[in-house]
């Protein structure tokens, strides 16, 4: 449990390195000194690639990798939607300061008024909350066993519900979120 807490608590380590700044939405390109900006198009394209990779990994039963990739895809797509629709973030007047908390990103998307009332986006909200509960940024370091124990601890899997089943359902939730965001990103 101590190790699990450590892994959970150090979620901003890559930002602290100074190379990446997801909060400001850009990444500096190292030695060349030229800034390479990460905006809506890059977040979107990266997210599409992550969900594709998640499917490949799921198909070959590499569950922790699939879960990590799909969750990262959700983060990227939510960032793309916020970036595309919030001019103050694009202009640098406001920062995309959510860390990697998917539920905070969901709040930002909701505040933009993009989601439909009357039940059409209830499933979208529910899926982001589900993924936000199961995914964490430092999952990138986690073994299959670690993910399995964590998901067992929070009741996502048990003696009747396998990691394979849970990872499959989780993929469907991530894919649904990414597909809805893709529609929201259309011109």
């Amino acid at each position, binding site marked *: 449990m101590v190790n699990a807490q450590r892994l959970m608590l150090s979620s901003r380590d890559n930002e602290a390195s100074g190379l990446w700044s997801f909060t400001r939405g850009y990444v500096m390109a190292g030695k060349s000194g030229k800034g390479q900006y990460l905006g809506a198009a890059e977040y979107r*394209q990266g997210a*599409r*690639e992550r*969900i*594709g990779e998640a*499917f490949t990994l*799921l*198909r070959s039963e590499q569950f922790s990798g699939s879960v990590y990739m799909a969750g990262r895809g959700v983060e990227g797509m939510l960032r793309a939607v916020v970036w595309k629709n919030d001019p103050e973030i694009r202009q640098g007047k406001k920062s995309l300061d959510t860390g990697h908390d998917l539920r905070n990103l969901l709040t930002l998307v909701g505040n933009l008024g993009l989601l*439909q009332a009357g039940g*059409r986006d209830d499933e979208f909200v529910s899926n982001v909350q589900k993924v936000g509960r199961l995914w964490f940024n430092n999952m990138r370091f986690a073994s299959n066993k670690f993910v399995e124990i964590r998901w067992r601890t929070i009741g996502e899997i048990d003696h009747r519900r396998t990691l394979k089943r849970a990872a*499959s359902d989780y*993929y*469907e939730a991530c*894919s*649904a979120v*990414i*597909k*809805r965001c*893709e*529609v*929201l990103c*259309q011109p």
Partner: protein
Amino acid sequence: MSTVTKKKLQDVLTTKLNLVDARFVLEKAGAKLSGNIISATFSGKDDQQRQRMIWDALEDEFGAQCVHLVGTLLAYTPEEWGVNLEATSKK
């Protein structure tokens, strides 16, 4: 490096998946084609089934190199794709 045209990709998937009233929104992503496919044929299938259909068809046509030609293709039913359009038309 070999590539595939949008027309070829559309033809392959429409034929092999028997897509009904298919609409393709394709774009270049690096050397690959990626994008969205909208068709009622995907109704009643979850996203893993849709992805398996797509990738089985691509592998059948292009072999193992399909992963170098094609990127992520998201599969929608017309209802899933048209959520916003429907909302706009009701206003």
